């Protein structure tokens, strides 16, 4: 109620007039009433009423925040956060080594960035995650939906069909092994068709379409509340050419990062971005570094770098607040993203609560 007039979200011209007329706090405005305001400032009664409504809404939301109403307030204790984090699910990648170094999989409410050379498998992982987020809860998944924003045009529906078919088969094998009722019930709705219908695809051709889409994303996510994954495949591509003004680029990227963090938190979704590598020319040699500059490195919470070592693809966890840096090998098979060799898992007919999705993997050839 004692809020300063200059801080209210009114039109700037109106604000300037109120301050010039001598109003100091929001309470004063509310006490004056619309007719008094219109006479003193020289605006119409309707405009005065509109302004007062804005002021009243602002003060109301301020009051609920100080009263500590749940949901709108962003304060909570670390214990509450710990409970939330432990109850939260992860999006698995079907490569158990990668899930392990990530601490369980791709985390919700965080931004994960995947950098890598061309052809190393970034888009493959994104397509795998878009399918994996939809795995039903009884199989250890999140039963969510996915938004796929494509700026490079590398999304191939046929490949997603392959990956989704393999995932459905995997779940069917688990259901056969364990024969529980909710497994079979979940399988009825978990089919190739339903997986594909719940991947929402946007093709953004330049950075303006990308900016516009991210502005519209909160409304879209409110309508489709089951979305748990937002993938932006190729955040670097639209920003890497046609930008003479680098400071504009930095500002736009920072704005994007902030909006994505808000989206990730508000809608409890995981945001996955893929980035390109660029050559940094040093004095004597050049190295490959993630594109978009140093300041962009702060945007993501978790950073994975994919690279080659002779013929083996490797994934390195480069930045993470909770896991230590490590490198693991992975494979891309006709069924999608997988481990290099089958992990040594023993047959586990009972006790499925811990890891219902794990079963001994057959070695895929090719």
């Amino acid at each position, binding site marked *: 109620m004692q809020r300063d007039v200059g801080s209210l*979200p009114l039109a700037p011209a109106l604000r300037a007039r109120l301050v010039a007329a001598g109003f100091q706090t929001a309470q004063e405005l509310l006490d004056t009433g619309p007719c008094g305001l219109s006479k003193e400032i020289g605006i119409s009664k309707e405009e005065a009423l509109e302004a007062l409504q804005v002021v009243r809404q602002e003060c109301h939301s301020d009051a609920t925040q100080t009263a500590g109403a749940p949901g709108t307030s962003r304060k909570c204790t670390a214990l509450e956060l710990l409970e939330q984090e432990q109850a939260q699910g992860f999006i698995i990648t079907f490569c158990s080594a990668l899930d392990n170094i990530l601490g369980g999989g791709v985390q919700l409410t965080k931004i994960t960035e995947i950098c890598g050379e061309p052809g190393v498998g970034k888009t493959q992982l994104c397509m795998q995650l878009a399918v994996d987020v939809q795995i039903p809860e009884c199989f250890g998944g999140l039963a969510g939906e996915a938004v796929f924003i494509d700026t490079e*045009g590398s999304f191939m529906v046929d490949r997603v069909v392959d990956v989704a078919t393999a995932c459905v088969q995997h779940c069917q094998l688990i259901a056969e092994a364990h024969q529980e009722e909710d497994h079979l019930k979940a399988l009825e709705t978990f089919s190739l068709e339903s997986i594909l219908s719940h991947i929402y695809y946007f093709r953004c051709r330049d950075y303006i379409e990308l900016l516009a889409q991210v502005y*519209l994303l909160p409304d879209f996510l409110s309508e489709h509340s089951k979305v748990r994954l937002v993938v932006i495949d190729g955040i670097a591509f639209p920003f890497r050419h046609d930008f003479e003004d680098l400071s504009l680029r930095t500002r736009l990227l920072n704005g994007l990062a902030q909006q994505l963090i808000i989206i990730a938190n508000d809608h409890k979704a995981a945001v996955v971005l893929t980035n390109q590598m660029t*050559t940094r020319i040093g004095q004597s040699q050049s190295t490959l570094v993630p594109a978009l500059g140093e300041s962009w490195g702060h945007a993501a919470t978790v950073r994975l770098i994919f690279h080659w070592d002779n013929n083996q693809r490797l994934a390195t966890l480069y930045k993470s607040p909770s896991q230590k840096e490590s490198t693991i090998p992975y494979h891309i098979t006709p069924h999608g993203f997988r481990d290099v060799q089958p992990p040594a898992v023993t047959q586990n007919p009972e006790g499925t609560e811990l890891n219902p999705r794990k079963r001994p993997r057959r070695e895929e050839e090719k």
Partner: protein
Amino acid sequence: MAPKKLRRARLSQELCERLSRYQITTCQDFLCLSLLDLMKVTGQSYRNVQKLLCKVSLACAPKMQTAYEMKVRRAVNPSSAFLSTSLHGLDKVLHGGVPCGSLTEITSPPGCGKTQFCIMMSVLATLPVSMGGLDGAVIYIDTESAFSAERLVEIAGNRFPAYFDSDEKLFSMTRSIYLYRELTCGSVLKRIKSLEEEIISKKVKLIIIDSVASVVRKEFDTKLQGNLTERSNFLARGASLLKYLAEEFSIPVILTNQITTWLSNGLAIQADLVSPADDLCLSEGASGGGKRESGSVTAALGNTWSHSVNTRLILQYHDLPTRQILVAKSPVAPFSAFFYTVEKSGFVLQETDSE
């Protein structure tokens, strides 16, 4: 693709006039401003500005489709999703052939057969759909003056003797291949920009650019300062224009590139490829100091370009006359290699049991 004017975003007339006083006339300018700047220029409250932002974004944002709708659309017209290369093993691995709607790159040392491949694909694109073609015209942008019409007719006559049984059919095939000779980067870019109208009027189903590398490397010497960024800009702009055309009209685009080898002190010589992984380790110089002593082979044109193409096929020498074609980068295919020879009828795959 000029940026959209604000008038077409359904903003009110007086608002557009007010914004034009601040030199904000397109959606691009509008979306690049921060919220506080927008409040200042529009003179509206915070909430109203957010609503305006949503309105302008709606005018610019792409349409949503689900993956299922995309699959159904492809299933309705399966033959239009790929252009078959008529090389059976290669088609199988690529799930049908050269994909429509994305960029495919053919890269090789000189003399391996890039231009032959391009000529063969031109013939295939003009074939009717029942024979695996796209029944359309071809735009061939030639920067090396390597295209030979006689060779085109020879390949057509020998590969499909049953179809091209009369001169009349051969001539009508050659009439639907439009050849453009461009010798500088600027003219190539200009030509690509003009393609949109040509594709509609001539019913084009395939675009070939042979070769991107030769014209770019003639003009940009990467050792000179500033040339690297200019080259990347040119390539990125060309790539995004071509991608737009490929997706908008759902046609394949084939580009050719060259191979270079970089030793650790920067000399470029010719070398044989060992495996596709070597190709994908790109570095303009040695990265990591000496990890690759024997010299890594890379496709020319650098990093940005390699990110832009979706599929990459590499041709290389094996034991003459046999050569090898490798699938190095593809969203749908794993690494594969096939042996082939170049005959009168174009490429002929050799059936080996190593496949």
